[in-house]
């Protein structure tokens, strides 16, 4: 029932959400994370305008880490199933980069697990984002305090 995937194709958000609808559940919470145009620099506070993003994954390890997160989420929260899909390659502004769907008997646990999953994914799953601007590009470094 659970699934973790990395794809270069556009993600069908509803498709992901509807793959996790077990009969004992009453709610699925789905996060649609997508490419942002305006990013404020952590260092300078300057707002930069992104033209497009490129995501790169260490695919085999990323899938292992994603599966680990799903297992941990199911231990910690009262949830039934999880779908985790990340896109790689070039993404236009507004295109979906990550979808997390969590189905649970009751919505509260699904919201909590979904938030926990995105935080952990951004901390541990080996995927990197490059922002491409009109006048340059930059690989984004995750928060160092959050290193695994």
């Amino acid at each position, binding site marked *: 029932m659970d699934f973790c995937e990395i794809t270069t194709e556009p993600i069908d958000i509803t498709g992901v959400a509807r793959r996790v609808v077990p009969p004992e559940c009453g709610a699925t919470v789905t996060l649609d*994370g997508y490419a942002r145009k305006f990013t404020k620099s952590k260092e300078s506070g300057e707002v930069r305008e992104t033209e497009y993003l490129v*995501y*790169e*994954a*260490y695919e*085999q*390890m*990323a899938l*292992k880490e994603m599966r680990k997160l799903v297992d941990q989420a199911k231990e910690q929260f009262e949830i039934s199933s999880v779908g985790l899909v*990340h896109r790689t390659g070039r993404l236009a502004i507004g295109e979906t*980069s*990550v979808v997390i769907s969590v189905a649970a008997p009751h919505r509260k646990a699904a919201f909590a697990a979904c938030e926990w999953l*995105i935080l952990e*994914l*951004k*901390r*541990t*799953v*080996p*995927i*990197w*984002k*490059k922002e491409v601007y009109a006048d340059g590009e930059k*690989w*984004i*470094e*995750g*928060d*160092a305090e*959050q*290193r*695994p």
Partner: protein
Amino acid sequence: MSITILFFGATADATGNRKIILNEKGCSNAGDLVEYLRQTYPKLRLLRLLFSINQKHANGDEAVNDRDEIAIFTAVSGG
């Protein structure tokens, strides 16, 4: 000793490589190996490096063994 080293994102740009095979005998642990790579590819010195051994996050004390797969990267930024 044959170790596969993988680079991603900023480290791939800094080294101009995605994958190299090292036959280095002087590196007994992962920290030594990263230091060796910093000397070989000076641009890596500008980055805060993290790494994994055989697809598990590692911290530097781990022994490096023949046929290990080691990835060198900066703090992850997916999502």
